[in-house]
């Protein structure tokens, strides 16, 4: 083994591996039902079978990823108790409610997804079938909502009193709706929508790059990029609010993300760079006043610096890079999707040009990278706490000495699942290309 047998470190790594793998499927699990709903709705409204087929094909691929999402979600649900028994004991007393409700939301989604998939041609009215995707989309977003409130609670635990080691005066709703909840929940949900739109857009873009000029792919690209532009603007707005939230409630996290050492007003925002041994920032791009504006809306906002905090309770400073990577990709996605929308609105411009298609194609994997970076940033940025100010990560962990073996087993499992999932998806769509399916279903040109 590369590590000494430290259950805390190994539990952190195993949790990271499980969540890092699960979040890929969870993210698209939140966003894709909405995209399917939009496509099916347009298909009905415009009476355009291309959009209906889009919804059908997306749903078909989606269900394979749902399977992996479900099983890895089950894994993390149980692993939380297995790896973090002390944390879960405290969490059960305080934030058990949204965890419980998340399962209900998922249950609801699972039932309707099952019905939706097997009833495409069962109802006379297309509208009836469309109605079935609505509970799926609502359930998916509600799941994200509930589970993110739990994560928000870990950042700002509230809704209880902790007197002489005993929890009293528990208020589950106050715990759920803590100060971190509004920004965190909206950020997670919008970013999931954005990522899903971009991944579906990237698929269409790749078809165009490969020389397939079928109008089906153009419609797919248009639909996903218009949606992505809206979600990107929303995500950016929420990002701004998140900065203000951090400034107010978790200043040490903001300062660590920004390598902001001295408390000062007119603080600049630092992009990239490296940190020397005596904490000097080098080779970074500085945007004057930007950190103060991000924190409080005005250049004269005073932003707390790292030097004000006890070094014992500061997160590692490398989270700066993950923060920057997330923000950079977010900006890139916004630019690309807005550019697409502008080009498609202007007469004489071609939004389906090759360079833009390439950028959209890159946006798919990049958006997932941003999701990963964002979660690494927020989770590592909360260290050394598992419940900020109350319980350290080390206190929450298991004492079992077998975590290392489990880490190996689960890593192999996820590797195998990930590879098979990719192979199966490829085979599904290679073996049944759009042209073939259009012909098979007797769709030539849309009637409108």
């Amino acid at each position, binding site marked *: 083994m590369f590590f000494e047998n430290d259950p805390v470190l190994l539990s952190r790594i195993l949790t990271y591996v499980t969540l890092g793998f699960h979040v890929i499927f969870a993210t698209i699990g939140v966003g894709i039902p909405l995209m399917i709903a939009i496509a099916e709705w347009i298909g009905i409204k415009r009476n355009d079978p291309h959009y209906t087929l889009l919804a059908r094909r997306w749903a078909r691929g989606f*269900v*394979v990823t*749902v*399977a*992996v999402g*479900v*099983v*890895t*979600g*089950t*894994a993390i*649900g*149980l*692993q939380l*108790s*297995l*790896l973090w*028994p002390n944390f*879960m*004991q405290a*969490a*059960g*007393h305080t934030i*058990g*409610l949204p*965890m*419980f*409700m998340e*399962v*209900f939301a*998922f*249950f*609801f989604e*699972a*039932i309707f997804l*099952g*019905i939706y*998939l*097997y009833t495409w041609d*069962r109802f006379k009215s297309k509208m009836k079938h469309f109605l079935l995707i609505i509970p799926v989309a609502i359930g998916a977003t509600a799941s994200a909502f509930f589970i993110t409130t739990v994560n928000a609670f870990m950042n700002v635990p509230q809704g209880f009193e902790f007197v002489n080691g005993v*929890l009293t005066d*528990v208020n*589950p*709703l106050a715990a759920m709706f803590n100060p971190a909840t509004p920004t965190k929940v909206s950020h997670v949900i919008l970013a999931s929508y954005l990522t899903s739109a971009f991944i579906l857009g990237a698929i269409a873009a790749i078809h165009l790059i490969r020389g397939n000029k079928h109008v089906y792919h153009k419609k797919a690209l248009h639909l996903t990029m218009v949606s992505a532009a809206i979600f990107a603007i929303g995500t950016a707005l929420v990002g701004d609010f998140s900065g203000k939230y951090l400034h107010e409630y978790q200043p040490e996290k903001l300062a660590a993300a920004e390598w902001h050492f001295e408390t000062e007003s007119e603080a600049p925002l630092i992009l990239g760079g490296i940190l020397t041994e005596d904490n000097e920032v080098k080779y970074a791009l500085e945007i004057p006043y930007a950190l103060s504006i991000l924190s409080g809306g005005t250049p004269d906002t005073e932003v707390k610096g790292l030097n004000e905090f006890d070094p014992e309770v500061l997160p590692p400073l490398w989270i700066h890079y993950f923060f920057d990577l997330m923000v950079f990709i977010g900006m890139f996605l916004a630019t690309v999707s807005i550019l697409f929308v502008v080009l498609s609105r202007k007469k004489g411009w071609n939004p389906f040009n090759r360079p833009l298609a390439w950028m959209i194609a890159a946006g798919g994997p990049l958006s997932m990278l941003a999701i990963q970076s964002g979660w690494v940033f927020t989770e590592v940025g909360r260290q050394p706490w598992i419940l900020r100010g109350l319980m350290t990560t080390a206190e929450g962990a*298991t*004492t*079992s000495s*077998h975590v290392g*073996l*489990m880490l190996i*087993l*689960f890593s192999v*499992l996820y590797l195998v*699942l990930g590879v*098979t*999932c990719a192979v*199966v*998806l490829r*085979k*599904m769509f290679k073996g049944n290309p759009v042209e073939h399916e259009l012909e098979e279903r007797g769709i030539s040109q849309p009637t409108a």
Partner: protein
Amino acid sequence: MTYEVIGITVLWIFLYGYLIVASVDFGAGFYSYYTKRTNKNHIIHDIIQRYLSPVWEVTNVFLVFFFIGIVGFFPATAFYYGTALLIPGSVAIILLAIRGSYYAFATYGAHESKIYTFLYGATGLLIPASLTTVLTISEGGYISYEDGNVQLLYGELFGSLYSWGVVLLAIVSVLFISASFLTYYASRAKDRNALALLRKYALIWSFPSIGMGVVVFLLLSQRNAEHFQNMVDIWWVFALSLAAFAAATYLIWQKKALGVAFIMVMIQYFLAFFGYGASHLPYLLYPYLTIYDGFTNETMAIALIAAFIGGLAMLIPSLYLLMKLFLFDADYIEGKK
């Protein structure tokens, strides 16, 4: 009824729900694999696929409900069971993960492969075996607790007759519950060949399942005399369970009222499972943890129960719709839709 009892009852209901729906699913996977090996798969393949496809995801949720719910209602269980069950719990997760995803890969990927079917069939028997570990260790004597450190005694677990008895009981029960449901489903589908084969399976596994039940009951007297005595005190519950079993087996034997027969099987397991659970109280884990000292605070309990009622109000109509479309719709079952 105290909040503690309401809490554990809610959880037990979910676990019972899981026991039934998962048994059908696990057994179906095994039969699917077994008939493939013996070249009889064409007889029952359609029946199994048509039932399982829309409902497999729902099965998993019952289990998630139970283990998230138990942490909500009884946070102390996370500490005891969480620490002790790292390995068996992880093994169960891995098996569930393999099963769920490979089922989806095979079904939606429209690609039948021998490995997929094997994984699907084998996990169907291994998962119940690994999950029952929890019930086994709850009887006490399999866990050491010193200086705040919880450890599972593997030698004790693997060397105990009781624990192997429970594993066998779980496996034969899965096969019996599954076969009796699929017999009913085949009769609804008017598929005579499938019906004959599945009825045979149901009858083969009927007596082993009740026999193992009795064996485990007797082994428990060695393991946990207090629990055993509590079970003897409510002997009538188990007698009724036995009666339900007799009725179910008779009906399947006579090829009559197969729907009623399956309901009888459900009643048989309902009585046995709740009789076992009720006599286990107040202990969640002998002798360390009872429902009273491991319970969450009152506000959380009320909130969870309210959420549960609200959730049920949403779920029951949805489940009804699911069952109406795929379980009770004759045209769908017969493959006309």
